[in-house]
């Protein structure tokens, strides 16, 4: 499907979700309780077949976090973006998509390391880059570190 077709398809299939578009891909916001259900449907539905998670990351929007999933299909070669907004800054938690896409293993470890977002049912959640003794989560906008960060 082209970008426009996919956008229309998503609007019709998931009427409860807000569908927008970025410069490149259609973008769908979903509630965090629906994540696994919607993702499973997108992965298995014959029309979409999003079998390839090519990028998973997070954005700190100061009031909340956004977890972003970039999906593509190795059969149809169309792409889309899924977004989940996490309001709770103190204790952000989300279901892991590892059972659906194994690529999430490393991506989610990195998000946990950099943003402190915990993923439930992740097989091995650890601070993959910085190590367990590191204080704070560097890619958060309110991260302060006078020792390690050199301001430019």
């Amino acid at each position: 499907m082209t970008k426009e077709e996919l956008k229309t398809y998503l609007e019709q299939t998931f009427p409860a979700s807000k569908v927008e578009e970025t410069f490149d891909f259609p973008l769908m916001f979903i509630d965090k309780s629906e994540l696994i259900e919607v993702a499973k449907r997108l992965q298995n539905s014959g029309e979409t077949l999003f079998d390839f998670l090519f990028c998973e990351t997070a954005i700190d929007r100061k009031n909340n976090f956004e977890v972003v999933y970039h999906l593509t299909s190795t059969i149809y070669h169309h792409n889309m973006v899924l977004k989940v907004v996490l309001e709770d800054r103190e204790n952000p938690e989300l279901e892991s998509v590892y059972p659906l896409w194994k690529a999430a293993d490393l991506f989610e470890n990195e998000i946990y390391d950099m943003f402190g977002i915990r993923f439930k049912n992740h097989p091995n959640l650890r601070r993959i880059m910085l190590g367990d003794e590191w204080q704070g989560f560097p890619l958060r906008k309110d991260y302060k570190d006078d020792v390690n960060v050199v301001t430019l």
Partner: protein
Amino acid sequence: MENQNNNLPLEELTEEFVVNIGPQHPSTHGVLRLQTTLDGETIKDVVPVLGYIHRGIEKMTESLGYKQFIYLTSRMDYLSAHINNQACSLVIEKGLQIEVPARAKAIRIILAELQRLTSHELWWGSTAMDLGAVTPFFLAFRDRERILEIFEGNTGNRLTMNYITPGGVMFDVLPSFAKSIKDLFKIIKEYLKEYDTLITGNIIFQHRLKGVGVLPKELAISLGCTGPVARASGISCDVRKYYPYDGYEKLDFKEITSDGCDSWARYMVRMEEMKQSIHIVEQLIENLPEGEFRTKAKGVIKLPVGEYYQRVETARGELGVYIVSDGGSKPYRCKFRAASFSNLGALQPITVGMKIGDLMASMATLDLVIPDIDR
């Protein structure tokens, strides 16, 4: 020998132990530590420990302007520096809707393909060295040097070029550019034959790779593998074919795939890709377009509010640059989806149950670059 402790036969009296391979180990090609659980010589588990060369490039981009952060990307996958710069330039051009002159596009593709050639040559040498053959390493460096000389002459740098810039390229290439590449290809084609006679046809080398490190197609898709690793598992995923940029759609080249799924398939895919890269450059070098080499971009670039994603095919797979802009002069958030990072996920599933010597063979053909993983 009779076992005197109890009645169990000797072979059942084994014990698991953990061996740390790295962070300073020649076959990890950089500072990566593999926590390997072994039972005798059999691998039970591999856990990669990262972060030894983590520089926080994503954090640094948030305090640098759009023209400045491109310089950092040369240091991620330092064997694909041109292609990294190209990805960042493309995402900025997309946001600003800048049209790149035809000459700049041609120069970019020529340099990107030469870069792929250098990277694969180095990979070829280091793979052979990991498996115990030292000569190919020196041959690979000898041949790579010829290409680096062209880079140095035309861009000023050998490794971290920072030559591709938003709007085109930094400055025009030398008048001798086309001739030097034509001369180079005469030599390189002979070199590639030498590679085949020296290593590819070697039966010991083939035995070390065939059937080793099998990565089935479904698993490769699930793990998000890209590049030669995925293509050797039968996934057609070449970004240059499916999402062409800078005029790849006008060029004739084949996407090399293989259904072998093992280390040998990955080896052969890369060897063929080198020939395709030469073929691509040959099409462009004959009539390099005349004209401007750069469209002037503003001194301080401000991308409109929104999200931009650009992917390119580096020597290791898909590099994605994801920029979230808030309208300011610096990226609000910048994520580099590095090919090696996702390909690293394949290491554990393809090596468990094999012997420790096969770990080196599998790792060599995954072709990981550690600064690309850590960023």
